[in-house]
């Protein structure tokens, strides 16, 4: 039903597609460092030498770790394996709260102390009405 030419064109397309996928895959693999938007506290632990470059650290805000003094917010970012202390002065976004995701942008002072110049809240994939959340919490 299909001629030889049709088959040839089909395989031509398939080969173009495969080679493009492979090359994109290779490019992304080698750029992995730059594609990730933030590092986790564990990644920070593994950094060999401290650089004075702006980086982003993401994870969860540790429960009961937020301290607000006059114009500073201090909290701990954790990935449940390692922790990092963050200090920040400025306005935090609405969704910033304990036990929730956060991304901080700024400079590492040392391996466990981070000075943030920007705080972004990271939302998780859960959506539910407040009553349901309450019911879940009571369980």
């Amino acid at each position, binding site marked *: 039903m299909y001629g030889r030419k049709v088959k040839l064109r089909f395989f031509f397309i398939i080969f173009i597609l495969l080679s493009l996928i492979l090359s994109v895959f290779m490019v992304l693999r080698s750029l992995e460092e730059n594609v990730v938007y933030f590092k986790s506290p564990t990644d920070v632990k593994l950094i060999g030498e401290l650089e004075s470059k702006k980086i982003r650290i993401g994870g969860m805000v540790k429960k009961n770790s937020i301290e607000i003094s006059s114009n500073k917010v201090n909290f701990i970012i954790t990935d449940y394996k390692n922790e990092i202390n963050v200090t920040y002065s400025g306005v935090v976004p609405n969704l910033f709260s304990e036990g*929730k995701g956060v991304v901080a942008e700024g400079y590492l002072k040392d391996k466990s102390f981070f000075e943030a110049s920007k705080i*972004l809240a990271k939302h998780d994939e859960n959506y539910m009405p407040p009553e349901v959340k309450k019911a879940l919490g009571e369980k």
Partner: protein
Amino acid sequence: MLKFFEPNKIFLITSKAPKYVLALFIVVISIGLMEALILSPEDYKQSHSVRIMYVHVPAAWITLGIFTSITLLSISGYVTKIKNFFLIAKSLAPSGLVFNIIALVTGSIWGKPTWGTWWVWDARITSMLVLLLFYLIYLIAWRIFEDKNQVLKITTFITICGVINIPIIKFSVDWWNTLHQPASISIFSKSSIHPSMLFPLMIMTAAFALFSILIFLMKYNTELIKIKNKGLDRL
């Protein structure tokens, strides 16, 4: 086998169908908007800004779906040399572009109060911007290349390059750390959106799908009229 592709028959459908699709669209979008804006509950964490999701997520789904369809149609057209496939692909593109812009803009509006920023260069958002560029390249290519055979090959190649980006968009949130949250709805596991919020989301998706069908039919109709008037281009 190709009776179905007879231009006159298609033209009969495309010139009549839009009004029915429009009527259905109005009904579905009114139900959808009522559900999304009034009846559905607010979110425990983000309160009323969750309502932006009912526009953002369907728009993003539709734009990904349309680009994938354009690619499949272009490849089928290239392989079988049936020009009608290209016409359908070309007519689908504008609504895909519009929904891509809607997804980016609503995401930005949602991001400001929740994340605390309008824009970040994370993998999901950047790859979505790349898709927008591919839509633009695709549509511009149809305008600038005069030679018919050339334009069909070039647009097919553009879609093949662009379609690689589709799985990257979909899985970017799983493969890399991104600011964008991972998917809430999956075919294989329980969705993490409460049913009372899932329902308006589905209705809005249906409404947006109807809208893109409507725009597609109108655009396709215009393309067919153009061909009729020229009288030299045969499907």
